[in-house]
């Protein structure tokens, strides 16, 4: 039996796709982006966070049958159906659990609820093939346009990612590119230009810029680990607008 390694289920998630959505966060990621705002989802192992200031303890990670996850999220079906909403699988890297995601999405599809996968795309193409019968919507991270940046900073293979992205577009799935705008990493005009060219050449029509924030800092503290971006302030508004302007030449661009 396939089980999903679920971190948490978040309802009325308003930043993860159209309409009213529930996001199923899955545990385990094969990248190590230093700015990650969900550090609790990187390791597949269960983890408990102690939030000292609030005096709160939260545990993440339990193995669940896709059917049970489906039953849980389908409680909100009336809300999804009101305005094109549905379920988003995120993480971590949801595409590391393609069988479980596929089974979950199949059940949801039979109930008329679409599933969107929020992925960094650095997985064998076979994983996408597994979910494609049931998943048609993708949020696909494009974090950099330079192979070296990918390999050294986040541990990803840009060639594989680009290849997957092209194939998804060619197959006619609904792909939105997501660009985390990270100070000092990819926010230079040149790097953004490269990202833009990559996106345009892949045939992706829409891109969202996700400006860096450090709201995840409390999680790092609660896990007792260091955070490179602890003291990095959010990007100035002009910088974000400039990025959107550059990206706008390559794809219809929004700011999340």
């Amino acid at each position, binding site marked *: 039996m396939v089980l999903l390694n679920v971190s948490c*289920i*978040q*309802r*009325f*998630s*308003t*930043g993860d796709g159209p*309409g*009213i959505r*529930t996001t199923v966060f899955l545990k385990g990621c094969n990248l190590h982006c230093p700015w990650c705002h969900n550090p609790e989802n990187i390791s597949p192992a269960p983890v408990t966070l102690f939030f000292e200031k609030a005096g709160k303890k939260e545990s993440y990670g339990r193995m669940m049958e896709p059917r049970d996850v489906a039953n849980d999220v389908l*409680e*909100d079906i*009336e*809300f999804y159906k*009101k*305005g094109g*909403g549905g379920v988003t699988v995120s993480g971590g890297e949801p595409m590391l659990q393609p069988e479980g995601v596929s089974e979950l999405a199949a059940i949801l599809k039979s109930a008329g609820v679409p599933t969107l996968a929020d992925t960094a795309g650095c997985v064998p193409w076979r994983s996408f093939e597994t979910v494609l019968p049931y998943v048609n919507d993708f949020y696909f991270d494009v974090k950099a346009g330079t192979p070296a940046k990918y390999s050294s900073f986040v541990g990803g293979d840009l060639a594989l990612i680009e290849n997957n992205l092209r194939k998804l577009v060619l197959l006619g799935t609904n792909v939105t590119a997501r660009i985390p705008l990270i100070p000092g990493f990819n926010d230079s005009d040149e790097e953004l230009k490269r990202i833009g060219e990559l996106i345009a050449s892949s045939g992706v029509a829409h891109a969202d810029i996700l400006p860096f924030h450090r709201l995840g800092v409390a999680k790092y503290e609660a896990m007792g680990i260091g955070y490179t971006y602890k003291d990095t302030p959010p990007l100035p508004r002009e910088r974000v607008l400039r990025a959107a302007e550059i990206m706008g030449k390559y794809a219809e661009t929004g700011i999340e």
Partner: protein
Amino acid sequence: MSILADLKSEMKAPPEGVFYPDLLRARGLSASQNETNVNVRADGISALFEMEKPFIYGNDLIAGSIRGYFFKITPEEEQFTKEWTDKYPERWFFTGFDHYAPDYRTAVNIGIPGLIERIDTSLEVNRKPASVALLKGMRRTLEAFLVRVKRYAEKARSLIGSEGYDDSRLTFIALNCEALLEGAPKTFAQGLQLVWMLHTSFVAEKRYAMALGRADQYLYPLYAKDKENGILTDSFCEELLANTFLKIVEFRYRGFDDVVNIAIGGVDENGDTAVNDLTYCMIHAVRDVNLPGPNLSARVSSNCPDRFLDECLKSIGTGLGYPALMNDDVNMAALLKKGYELKDVRDYCMVGCIENFMAGKQPPWSDGRFDPIKYLEAILRDMPGEELDAIKTMDDFMELYEEKLELGTAEYISWMRNITKQKDPDDHMSPFISCFCECCIERGLDINNGGAKYPSAHGAALMGIGTVSDSLAAINRLVFDDKALKLSVLAEALKANFEGYEELREKCIAAPKYGNNDDYVDRYAVWYTSTLSDMFDCYRTLDGGPVYTVMASNTSNIDAGREIGATPDGRLAGRPLSDAASPTYGCDKRGVTSTLLSVSKPDYTRSACGSVVNQKFSPSVFKDGKREKLAQLIRVYFARGAQEIQINSTSRAILEDARLHPENYQSLMVRVSGFSALYVTLPDAVQEDILSRTQHEDV
């Protein structure tokens, strides 16, 4: 600066002395040449209007202030006043005094002279001495009211050329007031001037929470006519409204805020949406005022345009918290069950916080607190342990609880009726307000003595639906399902406030909680609403009206909690009960959709007064593009039969910082169940209560 901002700063300086209209009333009572009680009273009320020193702000567009009722009182004056007001004591909240929505529609349609004409007609047919006396008293107060309007006109004219005043504005005020002396208002500004002059007159009578009712409906014909004639723009209309609504805040000179309900939207006499362009002006005006006082309520019917809901959410998103969103379909279904005519039901409004009300058709509202958890506590506290342990099933336990609740409701009703009886209707007539209640003039009867079209309705405000449901679920789970706990042991633990029973308390806390879309516990909320409504449906008010159930505790859940020991849901003694119709704070852990799925399960068409569900959202959900999701959420929630939602858009971080640095947050608004308030002014317990509300973060 805008006129509104200038008026705001002008209003900052409080009047000298104390709010003491009774001094004028006493002068009127003492000077009265009448003998009949109601006519002496009418002279007392008339003195309020005839002896007041009118006050006009330099930035007034619509005049009418309560500053003329502030005095520096000498001990002699105080004694004199007391002597006379004791002879003619007024009613109070429980006996039908305030929380009333006057029949402004008729007043606007026919004007005060028109009302006087109606009284004269009635005098020709109603020949009973009591009716004649009352009608003459009513007439007397209306004439005095016109004197008040006239004195304002004279004051405006006398101020022309004075420093700090604008001649064209003063002329505008004078002309509008003078027009009201002649007949019905002919323009929107005159209509608003009439309503505001009446409202402040009711405040001079010391009434509180007097609603403006469906102002977007009864003022609409004048608004539409002015627009057609090209003498009114929406921006000027909004300015007039804001200029008026801001003066509701004058009440604060008395030390606390008024709660003046304004019901917008809803349906018309045919059941079609009643949302119109004036509705939007009202939302914008209340948003511009941005202060507690005008309590905006949106009647959100299933057929209302999306723009209406969106404009409401925009206003809420500013942090103001207004309007509260009411499910119009459910409210109307609930009122129809109480036997009101369909056309009247379609024209209902709210008074006070959320109380559904037949505008100008029933005596003033009253309600009291009923604590169902007290009777659960009584069972566990008073029954001997062996008798408790002899209860074998949850059904048996529920039967026992229902018996206790039946006794409790009977006790409550006796209390309520005894209070009502304290005021002999023949000796406590209210001639002025009776002029603004349908049928009083025609019947020649007082508003509280059979004059109103419908009899009085009373609300039994049920405390703690969450606390009760969670407690019953804990008992069912631990005692009857798991058989892991004896009822007698639970009873001992509660008596000990869980001291020495910490492990048991953990189990109680871990039991299913209301607000997570879990039928195991939600069924008790369903039971709570219908069972208690069934019980109260057996009773009538003294004049034959219905007893509604209410699930809008305001902040009484804190007071109620102080009187209740530890409860089976794990709550410690003295802590607040769950608020209004909301789940217990912090216990709805699965997210807002689950909370709303739970909260929409009870049958609120049984709760004719209304209910309150408080929810907090981070301000980012109110941005363009996200707001529509909130609208979808509310549409689904209402389609499932929920009754109300009021939303606080202030982030938790801000609230926490405001506790540490109140000086930086002097104008921070929050919604306390039922109305908005300045956060820094709230007592600690209430501040904590707001903080502990589960916030649905937009992540």
